[in-house]
């Protein structure tokens, strides 16, 4: 029951993208298509689960004063693993996501969970919390990528819906489209949770 609560927290109530509004750089930069959003989300989820679990194991060993640099080293290690594995087995994806793979290190979600959750809770709960947060981040990125891909290039997960040569809203896959889509999505999420709250009360 406790584990279930830890898991669902990241999916909606404390969704990193829509509720906490953190980890925004990759959210905007790589979501030009649904596949890119999905893979970035999964890469971050992997780092999040592993680093949360390891930091939770080491929580009694790491001295309090140097905990932040220690957390960063743990996180950077897993990021390097993801970076090298992707480079070796998924070179196309690696070149699309490019710079934003090493930048998972400074994604505030990862360090934030380490500091706020993993350093205080058991290994199992920390890993589940990492999984929930990671999947919450993944669905947000995939949704954003899907909307931008659909409007900007007329396709979804690479399957095209429009005739060749038909004009699409190209701006949606460019930087301005990212900002505007996320702004509107935020407003929609606020509306939905307001409705839910009214119904509950």
């Amino acid at each position: 029951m406790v584990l279930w609560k830890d898991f669902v927290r990241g999916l909606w109530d404390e969704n990193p993208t829509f509720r906490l509004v953190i980890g925004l750089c990759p959210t905007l930069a790589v979501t030009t298509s649904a596949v890119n959003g999905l893979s970035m989300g999964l890469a971050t989820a992997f780092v999040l689960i592993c680093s949360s679990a390891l930091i939770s194991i080491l929580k009694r060993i790491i001295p309090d004063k140097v905990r932040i640099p220690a957390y960063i080293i743990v996180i950077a290690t897993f990021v390097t693993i993801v970076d090298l594995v992707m480079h070796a087995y998924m070179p196309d994806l690696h070149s699309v996501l490019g710079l934003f793979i090493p930048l998972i290190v400074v994604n505030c979600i990862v360090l934030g969970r380490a500091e706020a959750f993993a350093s205080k809770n058991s290994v199992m709960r920390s890993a589940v919390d990492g999984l929930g947060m990671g999947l919450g981040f993944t669905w947000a990125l995939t949704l954003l990528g899907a909307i931008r891909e659909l409007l900007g290039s007329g396709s979804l997960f690479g399957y095209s819906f429009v005739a060749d040569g038909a004009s699409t809203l190209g701006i949606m896959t460019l930087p301005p489209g990212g900002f505007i889509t996320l702004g509107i999505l935020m407003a929609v999420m606020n509306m939905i949770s307001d409705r839910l709250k009214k119904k509950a009360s």
Partner: protein
Amino acid sequence: MTLFTILLSALLVNNFVLVRFLGICPFMGVSKDVDSAIGMGLATTFVMVVAAAVTWLIQWFILEPLGLPFLQTLSFILVIAAMVQLVEMFLHKTSPALYRAMGIFLPLITTNCAILGFAIMGVQNSYSFIENVVFGLGAGLGFTLALVLMAGIREDLRFADIPKPLRGVGIAFIIAGLLSLAFGGFAGLV
């Protein structure tokens, strides 16, 4: 590439915040009034210029000769974190007034992905030492410019009548989108 082109490109054409999506968290978090936007921007610029010099030396005198480029992410982030700490301590001792003005922003700079991002980008572009420092300066000033522009707009926004769900970050993102659209006009400048 001349130094001026690098500066102009980092400052306007490929603005770090509005075109490359780096440093969005502080861009959204600290752009509520102009004074703190300027403080944050200048502190970041300062760290970026120093980081440009130090990460260049690490990459080309330590990591490359020893065949350790895979330690790049790890070593750069540690160096940036350590440097931010040093800058903080140095300012605390030498200029308490400046420290009070910049104080709260300094620790935040470590997790600003614009800094790690630009350090890695400088290596990918294999800039020379001077070029890398100029690139850092341009990136920092570009970050400051975007932050101050945004803060100016958000100060006025407080009196605007905005639909309830859009209030807060929602409208801020849409404004950032419009700013980004405007910066698209600089494309082709260099």
